[in-house]
């Protein structure tokens, strides 16, 4: 359908008002910010609502702030704002860099971080990257506020633990400490990414990796951290990491859950995970040595 079915539009000025509207209208209402996912669902007839509750007038919801060592992305912050945020460029440069490559420039101007996470498209960059930043989502409701680790927030494709009366208000990221070298690689031919790999290695003064963080996304129902890889990598020098890159990548790929879909069969995705984890290690190792290999691979964005 190219037109939308009629709905009313509420523009509450506070979370309390949002909560009241949700309580009153329940499933007849949908939360709305950028609409880049929501309006598509409405057009496709996959969702039918009587009203949209616009979150964009709730103060502070779009802010990007630092809070006691954490960086908080307001849920209604646009991808474009994330890309240009001086705070993020300083504290979480990879986040700003990845935001630059979400979808296309129009979606980046309009779409929001919160909308992206709440929609939980398995083929998404942000969730993968945020997982490597130990992201916590804040969910506000009239009953109170709770924080949910991103790993627990996403249940599966398009499915989250957010209750109908809850509003995702922000994402709390734990910036990697100084001395962290990182890379994000996304691979795919299609419009949405087929594979996302986020790798961060914090290198201690003794030159040892402590810790490593690896998240792999888009290949399975949810983005995944790779705890075995992180355990294996911890304590090693960057050179060792690079030397064992193939084996480490293979082990990581074996541990990841992959599902076959339009983007490829499960075994292809597993092998691509192996390839791109290895490539990520190589890039991180080079960056740790102060070089940037400016690696380029077909259908791949390297951040």
């Amino acid at each position: 359908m190219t037109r939308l079915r009629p709905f009313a539009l509420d523009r509450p000025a506070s979370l309390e008002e949002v909560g009241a509207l949700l309580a009153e209208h329940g499933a007849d209402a949908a939360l709305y910010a950028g609409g880049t996912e929501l309006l598509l669902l409405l057009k496709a007839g996959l969702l039918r609502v009587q009203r949209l509750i616009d979150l964009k007038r709730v103060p502070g919801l779009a802010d990007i702030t630092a809070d006691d060592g954490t960086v908080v992305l307001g849920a209604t912050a646009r991808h474009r704002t994330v890309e240009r945020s001086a705070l993020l460029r300083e504290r979480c440069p990879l986040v700003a860099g990845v935001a630059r490559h979400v979808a296309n420039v129009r979606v980046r101007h309009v779409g929001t971080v919160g909308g992206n996470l709440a929609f939980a498209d398995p083929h998404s960059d942000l969730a993968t990257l945020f997982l490597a930043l130990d992201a916590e989502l804040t969910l506000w409701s009239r009953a109170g506020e709770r924080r949910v680790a991103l790993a627990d927030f996403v249940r599966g494709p398009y499915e989250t633990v957010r209750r109908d009366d809850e509003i995702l208000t922000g994402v709390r990221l734990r910036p990697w400490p100084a001395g962290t070298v990182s890379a994000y690689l996304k691979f795919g031919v299609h419009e949405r990414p087929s594979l996302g790999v986020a790798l961060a290695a914090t290198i201690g003064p003794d030159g040892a990796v402590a810790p490593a963080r690896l998240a792999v996304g888009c290949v399975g129902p949810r983005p995944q951290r790779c705890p075995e890889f992180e355990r294996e990598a911890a304590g090693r020098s960057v050179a060792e990491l690079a030397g064992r890159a193939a084996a480490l990548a293979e082990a990581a790929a074996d541990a990841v859950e992959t599902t076959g879909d339009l983007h490829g069969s499960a075994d292809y995705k597993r092998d691509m995970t192996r390839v791109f984890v290895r490539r990520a290690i190589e890039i991180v190792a080079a960056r740790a040595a102060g070089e940037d290999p400016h690696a380029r691979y077909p259908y791949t964005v390297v951040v």
Partner: protein
Amino acid sequence: MPDIRTPSSCSLALTVNGRPVTLDVPAHALLLDVLRDRLGLKGAKRSCDIQVCGACTVLVDGAPVSACTYLAVEADGRAVLTVEGLADGERLDPLQEAFIEHGAVQCGFCTSGMLLSAKALLDEDPSPTPERVVQYLRGNLCRCTGYRKLVDAIVACGAARGGTA
């Protein structure tokens, strides 16, 4: 159950191509339809309808948006630029000239979206490299030209003037 057939009407005051416009639109109206059907600005086109192809691109406060998936109410209080607003009377924008000169126009259905996206790019990056142009145009599809002349036209425009006014 409210009668959803009664449109929730919103009063908009915006500028379109530099001119003030006031109109009432239902909340569910899409900017593309308001521009095309209410204001008679047919330049923006409906193609993929899912924000991928860019044929519906218009600029809102200088930012490119997919008008097919953008509520008209979001344009309230803002400045909208469509392809009809690029030329200054009969004087074409350098991008329009470049598209013609370089043979970057064939069926024309992607053209208005391409022009506005190119304008947004040049406003941000007055002399983009071909690589940058290609990257920026990820969201603008063309089935006729093969992109070669589109990229050439935009790069040439950037090189010539360092961006559009």
